[in-house]
Structures are given as C-alpha cells and as structure tokens.
C-alpha cells in the first residue's frame, strides 16, 4: 500500500542514506590510504582526496587521519554527520527508533572528537564503523519495506554507484546497483518512463548514467 510522505521527509530520507553511505565509504578509503601512507606510498592520501576534489596536506599517517576526517574541507566527516543528523531529526517518524539513537550517537562521536584535543586513531574509526553497521542493520530489520525505506535505500545506492564510478571499481557491480536504483524509482513513481530500467545505459558513460539518475530523482520528488 502506498505510504504518504511529504517531499521534505522523502528528501531528507534520501539524503540520510547518501550521507551515511558516503561517511562509511570514506572511512573505508581512509583506512586503506592510512595503511599505505605508513610504509608504502606517502602520497596515497593526497591521491585519494584528489578524487574527492580536495587538496589534502599532512606530514604523516596520523596527521592524515585527523586532516582527512576533521580537516577544513568539503569532505569533513563531522560536517557531513551534522547534515545526516538534521535529516534524521526531520524524518524521525519514519526511522527505526534504535537506528535514530545510533545516528545521534554517531553524530556525538564525531562532534566530541572534533572538540577534543585527542588524536584520531584506529579505535575511533572502528567505533564509527561499527555504529554505521548497526544503523544499516536496524534499517534492514523491517520485513515489509515501506516507501520511506525505499527513499533511504535509494540514497544509499546512489552514493554507492557514484563511489564505484568515481573510484573506477568493478563495472558489473556498478551496473547491478544502477539496476536496483531503477527498480526503486519504478516503485516510488507512477511515471511509466521512470519504471523502465533503461538497460541501454550500459553502453553510455558513467557521468551520463549518474546524471540521468539525478534527473529522475529530481522529478520524482515534487516540491
């Protein structure tokens, strides 16, 4: 049965999915780069953040952790977590209560770290990752998915697809994700065009694929 949702809630759920996925994926990349910086490639962090459009500077692996997570740039995870918290507060009625609590806790974790003089370490990242895993786990508990769940998942998948394309990951996996995005768009839309899966996308470039997806989402949510 169709679930009523305001455009505001739908948008906030979508962005909540995106921000959480972005934070999780970024943390994974940071750990991988951190490992390289120690004794393989000092520039691994610079290269990673170049892909994200950020010129990152650091002197050692430890400083990379701090500057990548809390540095003064557009990929600052504390800032992203602040956005995710806002999305959560606005859409709280559609979110599992435990997941809500974990998101607030995750925000507090980043917030406290940004205020403290302690250095970010592996333990902090582990803690953040385990909270994110718990959040996803709480979201996936519902047996029967509602529209609100689909908006959240849509955000997560769009971010995943973007990540795969941006970092040139497995193309087949990326196309499976794109396929699922279209399935969800079909569920959430009454528009017949939106319901078709557009397999021809496999033959066009990734930027065009993402551009098409973004346009469809824009037309899906009527403000």
């Amino acid at each position: 049965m169709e679930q009523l949702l305001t455009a505001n809630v739908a948008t906030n759920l979508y962005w909540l999915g995106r921000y959480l996925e972005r934070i999780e994926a970024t943390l994974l990349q940071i750990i991988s780069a951190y490992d390289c910086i120690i004794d393989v490639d000092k520039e691994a962090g610079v290269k990673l953040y170049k892909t994200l459009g950020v010129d990152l500077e650091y002197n050692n692996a430890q400083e990379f952790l701090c500057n990548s997570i809390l540095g003064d740039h557009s990929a600052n995870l504390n800032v992203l977590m602040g956005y995710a918290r806002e999305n959560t507060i606005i859409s709280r009625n559609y979110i599992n209560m435990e997941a809500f609590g974990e998101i607030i806790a995750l925000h507090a974790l980043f917030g406290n770290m940004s205020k403290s003089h302690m250095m970010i370490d592996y333990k902090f990242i582990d803690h953040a990752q385990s909270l994110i895993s718990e959040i996803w786990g709480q979201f996936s508990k519902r047996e029967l998915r509602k529209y609100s769940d689909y908006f959240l998942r849509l955000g997560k998948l769009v971010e995943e697809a973007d990540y795969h394309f941006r970092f040139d990951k497995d193309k087949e996996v990326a196309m499976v994700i794109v396929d699922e995005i279209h399935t969800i768009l079909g569920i959430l839309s009454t528009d017949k065009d939106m319901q078709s899966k557009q397999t021809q996308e496999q033959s066009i470039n990734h930027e065009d694929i993402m551009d098409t997806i973004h346009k469809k989402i824009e037309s899906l949510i009527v403000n």
Partner: protein
Amino acid sequence: MLEKETELHKKFWEIFSKQDRQKIDEFQTYMDKFAVNFNLYKDGNFIERSLPFDVIPRIISKTEFNKIEKGLQQRVTALNLFLEDLYTDAKIVKAGIVPQEFVHQAKGYLKEFVGFSPSQKIRTHINGIDLVKDTVNDEWVILEDNLRVPSGSSYPLSIRDTYRKIYPDFFESLKIAPIKEYPSYIEEAMNYVNCGGINVVLTPGRFNAAYYEHSYLAEKVGAQLVRSHELVVVDKKLYFKNYNGKLVRVGAVYRRLDDEFIDPTFFNPESLIGVPGLVEAYLAGNVALMNAIGNGVADDKGIYYFVPKMIQYYLGEEPILKNAPTYLPYFEEDMKYIFDNIEKLVIKDVAEAGGYGVLFGHTMTTLQLEDLKAIIKANPRRFIAQELIEFYDEQCYLNKELHNRKADFRAYVVMGKDVKVWQCGLTRYALEAGNYLVNSSQGGGFKDTWVMEL
C-alpha cells in the same frame, strides 16, 4: 513544605532505597540519544537541549486523582460550552454573567468568527490545565487554563517508557496507572471531528521549541507531520501534498501554532508558517482545527475569573475544583483590595503565558509597587491579581541529594465524543529553591506523575 507522607510514598521510598542510583544517569543518556528536546532561543542562538528531568515522581493517589478527573471534566465541558455560546448566541453575556466589554477586550477574542460553529461543536479538543496543591487547605487549585496549544505531554510519555526499562521494580510492585493510551485519546478526538480526509499535525517546523513533541505525537497518533507549505487549499478544501505531487484530502488538523500565524490571508500577512486559505476551508466546514480558532479568549487570565460562574451557568453545578482567589482591577471593589494588599499579591498580565508577565508583590520595592499601581490604574483590564498560593514542594534528587522544590501539575484533558483526563500529566518543578515559576520556558524541569493505588 512537603505534602504529608502517605502509604504510597512509603512504598515508593522503600523500593527506591534498594535501587542502584548510578542508573539515574541513564535517563539523561536516553534523552540525549533520542533527542528528547525542548529547544531554546538564547541571545539569538538556537539551542537544542533536553528538559531537566528528576527521577522522583509526583505521586497522586487514585482516589485523589478521581476527584481531579471529575473536576477537570466539569471545567473543560463548561469552557467548551462557554466558547461555543460566546461565538454563537452569547447567552452568558446577555445574562450579564460575563461582561461584554470584558470579552471584547480579550486579546484572543476573534469577532470575525462569531456565528461559526466548528465540527461537532467541539472547540476545546486538547487542553492543558495547570494546578497546584495548596498547603493551607490541602486541596488542588486551578491556576490556569490552556485551551490553545498546550505542550508537554510527550515528555512524561517518553520518560515513562525509559523508567520502566531502567527501574522495572516500581512497576512490578506498585499499582501505577498505565499512560500509553493518551495518543489514542487524541486520535479518537481527531477522528470524531474529522470532516473527511486524513489527520495531520501542523508544526511551525524543525526549529520550534517543541518540535520533538510535534514529531512524537504525530507518530503516536498516526497522523502526518506537516509544515504549512506541505498543505494547500483548493476550492475551500485542505489537501496534503504527497512527495509525488498527489493531493490527499485532510479532514482534521492538530495545529501546533497560534491563531495569528495559521493563515496569512486571514491573520498576520507576514506569517511564513501558516497555510493560505485554511481559515476559509475551516469556515466552510471542510476541515476541523484542533483546537478551534478563537479559544484564546478563554486562556485570558481575566476570563479565568469567570470559570466557576460558567460551571454554575451551563451545568447547574458547583465547581469541583476551585480557582485561586482572584481579583479583577476592572471592578472598583477589587481594585481597592488590590491596591491595599498589593505587596502580598501576585499580579499577572492577562495576555501573557509561559511564566512571563508575572510579578510577585512581596519581591518588589515600594517604588516599584507604586509604579505598578499606576500601570494597573491606567489599564485595569490588562491585569489580574491573585493571592499567593503556598503550594507544596516536591522532593527532587538533584546532585545526588534530595532537595525540595516548588512544583505544579499540568493535567491533559482531551475532548472528543467524551471528555477524557489522562492519568498522568506534566509535573514541572522550579530549578531553584523557593522559586514559584516552574515553566519549562523559565528553565524548570519535569517529573513523571504516578497515579497510584494500594
């Protein structure tokens, strides 16, 4: 001064003495984790904060609460009849019981709504009635009626769930009235007055002080939480705008914003949080508003004076619950009494709320009192004076010690097909010793309220 300890209190303290007090901190953890907030604006900054909570509940015996319940049902029934009468036949004014001039000068009186009768003739759907227990007569006294947008019910609702998890012993061993049914009272009332369509809760938005409550109640009541621009009026009917642009008819609105902001085409044109055309849809009988527009007249502290007379006039009964002794400077005789006794009275501005506009004579200098007299004389309708009620303190566990604090009690009364009184409420305590102002907006905290029997 504390209320005399009863068997119920003894039972509570007996169990409390065996509890792990370290766990008290878990209440704050819970409120932080689930953002159970009452927000503030301070120096232009938006501050998200949880309401201070005290673990020692206010205990009211079932027998005592039964009397409160009957008194509140009587009072709200009379107030609803008053409002309906006032905006239609105005018999109470014609009978000379409430002076016409007095009504017309009330800030919340809206003459544009004269002649309109809302769905099911119900105007006072959700009411917060503030009471204190007087130490002199050992009885409950009504301090204030809030018939517009009373807030606060979500806090005891939220905390009770937590209390049961942290300290289940109390709920296993004592007969404490359950409180979960409150949202169903609201839902039933909404369905009863619904004019065809879905139910919504209209919030000013994310940055309102009570946004948590709006969100919480919408979920529990099964209504959509909406902001003004997520509603639209077409052909005098109100619609909810779904994310895909589809319009869904709305039959009842539990609005959490004041009359003056509700419709910029009718009231304040500057309002950004209202729904254009909503009043037109309401007047056409196509949507119910909870609470009704124009209820502010009954919240006027001057009109409060007449509530016992309303009960006698409409119901032919004596009031079960008394008002605090109140004087209206509007009447010559009362003005003289006020001026002769001003240093021991509490002076209230009739149109203020939330603990604002309250002056305690005993805290003012002679010069200040003379100034106040001049202000009252210049505008007698603007003020009321009340005897200072010495109300009981409640024990609060603050900084790991027990302290006495003044505490009032906001009871919630919901009117649908029947008038229902929630067997809980918001007990608010002052943060400082001796302070009589307990309002949340004045920094006060809250307690759970247990209606108990042996």
